[in-house]
């Protein structure tokens, strides 16, 4: 249990750094650390499948962030650090986030105390695979179709067209 809260602390620090750091490369590195620590939380509570998927997704997203940041010139030494927009929208989003946390805090007070503890081993890969293929098979198919269409659509949207070059 305590190691879960250790990883939760690492996740929170990394997320704060990813949100407030100005340098893009440091923000991307913090996002990667946050993803890895979140996968570690999942692993400590017995969700191996989600932990592995979280690690894979975080690493691939980080690699692609680095690739696109290089392509867009944000890693250029001459590029100035971006100035942050600190306006009423930021304070509004902070207030919304705090209100969101408050609603969650009020909501979880209604749960029985013993159900908020973690239980290990009840969601092993075998039972999750069975439920995925027996009860959520249509959802799995739809998700696969969405990912396929996104792959094709992303290629179509980002294709190079000579006419757009000035």
């Amino acid at each position: 249990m305590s190691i879960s809260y250790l990883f939760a602390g690492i996740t929170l620090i990394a997320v704060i750094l990813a949100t407030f750091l100005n340098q893009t490369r440091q923000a991307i590195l913090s996002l990667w650390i946050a993803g890895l620590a979140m996968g570690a939380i999942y692993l400590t509570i017995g969700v191996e499948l989600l932990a592995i998927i979280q690690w894979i997704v975080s690493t691939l997203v980080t690699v692609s962030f680095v690739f696109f940041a290089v392509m867009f010139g944000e890693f250029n030494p001459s590029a100035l650090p971006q100035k942050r927009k600190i306006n009423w929208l930021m304070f509004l989003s902070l207030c919304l986030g705090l209100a969101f946390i408050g609603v969650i805090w009020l909501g979880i007070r209604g749960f029985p105390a013993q159900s908020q503890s973690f239980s290990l081993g009840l969601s092993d890969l075998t039972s999750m695979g069975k439920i995925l293929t027996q009860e959520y098979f249509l959802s799995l198919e739809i998700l696969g179709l969405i990912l396929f269409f996104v792959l094709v659509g992303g290629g179509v949207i980002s294709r190079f067209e000579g006419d757009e070059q000035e």
Partner: protein
Amino acid sequence: MMVLSGLIGALGLVCMVSRKTLLGLLIGVQLLIMGSTMMFVFAGISAGLETQGHIFGLFITLGGVAQIVVGYALAIRLFFIRKQTSIDDIRMLKQ
């Protein structure tokens, strides 16, 4: 832990609002997705429906990958058209 997931989502929202580039916007989206995934997982644990919460977290994570891919594609499109990825000057994607 559910409060932590809400905090991650809230910080993702702040990141989306405050950053000026498309990649910063996508970092915020990724944080929001991570927070919502964690929320479903721990809500499932709290409600005694662990496996269902984990499966919904799996679907949210993979659906988030699709959103990130579309964001990358739009960023590339914008970079082709405008030669920059700052979101301050974007009012329409059409050239």
